[in-house]
């Protein structure tokens, strides 16, 4: 976990320093002494290992450095402004995707082979193929512009988060539904389920106590890699719905060549993913008695 994070930070740092052109290359070339002063102010004139040490030292204290472009802000302030929005959106989307996906998966899995199952899975397969960049604008067009039920963009009220959350959750719900269905169908054949049926357990106890915990294991392990793509998706969704989260800062920083801002966002994202993966592993062990007991 720590190694992964260290690798990312080092990689990102190296990439930024390898890049041709400095952050101060604008339309007009700056006079040499001004540029030298700027470089000194941002410690860009020091030896590379000193810069690295300085950046890592700052990181250890939770300092991501100054923004190269937005003079009055440092990266911490920008990220602190965007993080609550991005984290809230991501969490809401994850919960929505889990409920929606598991619900669909249960509906299809326990009716395997019927017409309902096939219909659900056909819709689900279409959902997998629908990229956010197509679905999200369509949702804006239908629910915000034509029906006027929900606002199209911005972050003023809770209603502004409904469309982005659903747009972000949809592809995950499709993947989760698929995994849940496959898990249920497989778990049905397990001996312990047969025993449970033979004991005459009620249907709900059978489903929630004996089938779902095992059937959901693939879903749990899917959540790890999903966290990474959830963040990527949120960059796009924040762009479409005009939400001032860190994804927006990332794209702006990328377009303006604001190196420190982009670096900061990548570091924060990576830390989030690594932490999330760690909890996914814990959840996995907790759900599967075989893993839990072997430790």
């Amino acid at each position, binding site marked *: 976990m720590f190694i992964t994070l260290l690798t990312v930070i080092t*990689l990102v740092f190296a*990439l930024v320093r390898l890049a041709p052109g400095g952050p101060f290359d604008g339309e007009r070339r700056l006079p040499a002494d001004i540029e030298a002063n700027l470089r000194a102010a941002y410690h860009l004139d020091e030896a590379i290992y000193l810069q690295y040490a300085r950046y890592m030292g700052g990181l250890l204290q939770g300092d991501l450095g100054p923004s190269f472009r937005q003079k009055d802000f440092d990266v911490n302030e920008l990220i602190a402004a965007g993080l609550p929005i991005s984290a809230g959106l991501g969490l809401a989307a994850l919960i929505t995707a889990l409920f929606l996906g598991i619900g669909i998966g249960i509906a299809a899995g326990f009716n395997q082979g019927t017409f309902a199952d096939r219909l659900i899975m056909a819709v689900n*397969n279409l959902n997998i193929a629908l*990229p956010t960049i*197509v679905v999200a604008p369509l949702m804006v067009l239908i629910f915000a512009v034509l029906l006027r039920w929900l606002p199209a963009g911005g972050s003023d009220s809770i209603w502004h988060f409904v469309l982005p959350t659903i747009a972000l959750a949809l592809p995950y719900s499709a993947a989760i539904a*698929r995994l849940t269905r496959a898990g249920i169908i497989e778990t049905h054949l397990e001996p312990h389920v047969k025993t449970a049926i033979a004991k005459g357990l009620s249907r709900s106890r059978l489903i929630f106590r004996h089938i779902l915990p095992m059937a959901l294991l693939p879903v749990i392990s899917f959540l790890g890699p999903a966290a990474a793509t959830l963040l990527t998706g949120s960059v796009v969704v924040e762009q479409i719905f005009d939400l001032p989260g860190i994804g927006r800062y990332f794209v702006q920083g990328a*377009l303006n060549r604001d190196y420190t801002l982009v670096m900061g966002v990548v570091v924060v994202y*990576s830390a989030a993913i690594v932490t999330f993966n760690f909890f996914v592993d814990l959840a996995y062990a907790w759900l599967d008695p075989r893993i839990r007991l072997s430790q």
Partner: protein
Amino acid sequence: MRQPLDSHTSRPNNKLKMRRSTRVSIILLSIVVIAAIIGPELSNWQPEDIDWDSMQQGPSLAHPFGTDLVGRDLFVRTMIGARTSLTIAVIATLVSLAIGVPWGAFAGYLGGRVDQFMMRIVDILYGLPFILLVILLVVLFGRNPYLLFAALGAIFWLDLARIVRGQTLSIRRALFIEAARSLGAHTGQIVWRHIIPNVAGPIIVYATITLPSVILAESFISFLGLGVQEPNTSWGVLIADGTATMESSPWMLFFPGVLLVTTLWCCNTLGDRLRDHREDIQRKPFNI
């Protein structure tokens, strides 16, 4: 497609039973590919031509897909976009093959410490927000489309390396490998001549699963304005333009959107069907 020697993976039913969805997706995908190849030549317009008389017009006889804000024909632009998106997808997939296959094959064949070390690297890289790193690369080194190909390919080799390693482990003790070694073949020869051809099946299946992921990744990056740049175009660029003007000219979003969705659906369906016949390959969580 040669069958691997492992008895677990070789199944008697070698035929791809054609389901209706399989046939439909093969046909649709062929149409898209043919359109991408010859489509631009069918149109009377060049992608950069401006029709001063019809700016932002809906579909008509002269412009089957309508025109964009500055009066460029959207049919020819969508076809060029298809060409760009598919080319990037194919090249990126080839790049991922070029890295992932030897990586996995050597790790699996050599085993021991080397294997552990190589796969540890894959594990570490696996947890990274790769699209973000690609964007970072694009920012730092300019918007060179070739860099985009390479960077995208460099994301997708990880899964491939894992799969190839798994397959290689299952055949590294096979008799014909032993025979090759006792005849004095060196490691490179064994991997190249004996291992890779025998794990080709799963590699091909996995490549079909990789294609839609790359198409999706490219469209995301281009949508954000960080990938393919004007005057060149791709589906992501066209969809971004269409999104900006969808209230006044929905056709600008509709046609590229439908093509992208169709292509992704076809690739996913084909990938699923192929994978159903090879249960040794896990499905990728989904896109990217």
